[in-house]
């Protein structure tokens, strides 16, 4: 195992045991992340992108259960950690920003109170020092009149401001890893641009790593170093930003890229949608989960799980299409 990684998840399996049956939310997921790197996780709802990140913080609640794999984060073996260890780690070494800032802030405490809480919990700063630090954080995230805001409640702020406060709380103890779970989905585009800009600025300033969970390929293209594409609880393809956008190797990734309308197109082209409906994880299909919706589905796809194919040190995909040439051509160097 390479110890240079800040995050190293190996073969993670996680299931939700619901009354209706076992839902395999994560199925053999492996990702890693270096310090200061930005990893984007894309996929549709229910593909497991949030669960992957949450499990790193021990936030998978009942009936979710980790049933296999190794999770390493910053020297911790996450799968063996207790709730007590987690509360020491959360907010200090790893922080999270949620999608909806209104529901993730406490409505009955002032903004100042909520920021100071984190600081006082994880450092030995006294009230005065924590206050000064909180004011400093608010100005760091670009909030005007920070001292006035300290006394305000979440409902008095706009959506963009609330998300800035969330970021301030997340960064209070300068974590090594920031998990951003759809941080701008609830915001308008012009505010989204402000928040993304802010996140990148702070990343450079503080040198933290970011896991960016989103379904917006545009955000990923402009922010991330590497991308993991998830479908039905698996990482189907991962690679650097350029590899994913310019040389996609999985049919799902290709489909996603073709199905989005482009703002810079100059003539009207019909969109090429991915047909069918998202997978029902209670009854996943045999073989490759994407096969029933895949344009180039072959017989083998319906029977077997596609193997991992490496294209470069950073780029791999699970898709039989990459073996097709070998299987048919017969004169590749493997023979």
């Amino acid at each position, binding site marked *: 195992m390479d110890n240079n990684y800040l995050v190293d998840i190996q073969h993670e399996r996680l299931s939700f045991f619901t009354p209706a049956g076992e839902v395999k939310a994560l199925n053999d997921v492996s990702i890693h992340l270096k310090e200061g790197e930005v990893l984007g996780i894309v996929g549709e709802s229910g593909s497991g992108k949030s669960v992957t990140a949450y499990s790193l913080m021990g936030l998978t609640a009942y009936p979710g259960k980790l049933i296999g794999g190794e999770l390493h984060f910053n020297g911790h073996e996450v799968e063996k950690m207790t709730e007590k260890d987690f509360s020491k780690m959360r907010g200090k070494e790893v922080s999270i920003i949620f999608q909806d800032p209104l529901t993730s802030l406490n409505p009955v405490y002032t903004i100042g109170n909520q920021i100071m809480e984190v600081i006082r919990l994880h450092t030995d700063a006294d009230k005065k020092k924590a206050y000064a630090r909180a004011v400093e954080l608010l100005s760091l995230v670009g909030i005007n009149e920070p001292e006035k805001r300290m006394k305000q409640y979440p409902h008095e702020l706009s959506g963009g401001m609330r998300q800035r406060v969330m970021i301030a709380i997340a960064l209070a103890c300068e974590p090594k890893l920031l998990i951003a779970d759809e941080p701008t989905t609830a915001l*308008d585009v012009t505010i989204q641009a402000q928040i993304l800009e802010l996140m990148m600025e702070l990343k450079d300033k503080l040198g933290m790593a970011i896991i960016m969970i989103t379904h917006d390929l545009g955000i990923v*293209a402009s922010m991330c170093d590497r991308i993991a594409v998830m479908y039905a609880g698996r990482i189907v393809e991962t690679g650097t930003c350029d590899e994913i956008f310019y040389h996609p190797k999985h049919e799902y990734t290709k489909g996603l890229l073709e199905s989005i*309308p482009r703002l810079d197109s100059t003539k009207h082209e019909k969109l*090429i949608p991915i047909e069918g409906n998202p997978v029902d994880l209670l009854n996943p299909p045999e073989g490759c989960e994407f096969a029933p919706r895949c344009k180039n589905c072959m017989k083998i796809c319906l029977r077997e799980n596609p193997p991992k194919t490496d294209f470069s040190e950073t780029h791999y995909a699970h898709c039989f299409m990459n073996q097709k040439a070998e299987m048919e051509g017969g004169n590749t160097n493997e023979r």
Partner: protein
Amino acid sequence: MSDKLLQVEHLKQYFPAGGMGKNRKFVKAVDDVSFFVNKGETLGLVGESGCGKTTTGRSILRLYEPTGGKITFDGNVILDVENKVKADMLPYRQKMQMVFQDPYASLDPRMTVGDIVGEAIDIHKLAANKKERHDMIISMLEKVGLNSEHANRYPHEFSGGQRQRVGIARALAVNPQFIVCDEPISALDVSIQAQVVNMFEELQEQMGLTYLFIAHDLSVVKHISDRIGVMYLGKMVELADSYELVARSLHPYTKSLISAIPIADPIKARASKRIVLQGDVPSPLNPPTGCRFRTRCPYADECCAQKEPEWREVEKGHYVACHHVEKINV
């Protein structure tokens, strides 16, 4: 011109927001908006939340009773507040329909899909007997890519994309000419969005429909629309042909809106420079004087604070409301 299907003039929609008597306050959700939609075209309406795009769509259908303005549909005045004309909407409801944003909330959970689609057929008495009604429902469902066995199921048995198809089938059931699509795809997954967008286009070709397509996602709106109107705080700020609008936008708000959209292409994304607007959208309860965009506009000056910019046609078919259009776009 006679090929205008819908004409909206000086539409105003104010909502009371507390206060009594003289102090009565109003949210000016839509304030003096004028535009027209030609037969068979798609007019897109974009803007940030709270800019009044949904309200505009609903006021046109008179789901809200507008405070002021005149609406003409297919040559008939359906509303003229000044001259106190208020047409009976029932016959027009058959020609003007709406598809809602949230496919989870807009379908009655206790009705079967067949009844949801059939309800409009009943109200407008379009079917002579039960058999005809049933056939009509099935043909509608088939049009939107569902099949006859879906008619007996309930909404909860469907995925988001399928529900939105039901919502569309319901709108189509009365054979309308004009459909207001209010964010019909924003609640759907990315991979499903393209399916629904394509379906809207196919139905338009088959049935000669006219759309008012409301969404906040400019890339989708640009894809589907012939012309696009951009709204900000209850005002229309720019309206033009969709390619023209994206390639040569004139209003500073449109410019920043376009540059704020992340491009799904890493090389272009790295090269592009964003115009990041400062601050938030002001409250519509007391919007800024003069030009409503001036508080966030990089070009704002004295003149913008005092005078409200005029809605004018700077080039053929390209409307804009800004004092400094000529200065900004040299």
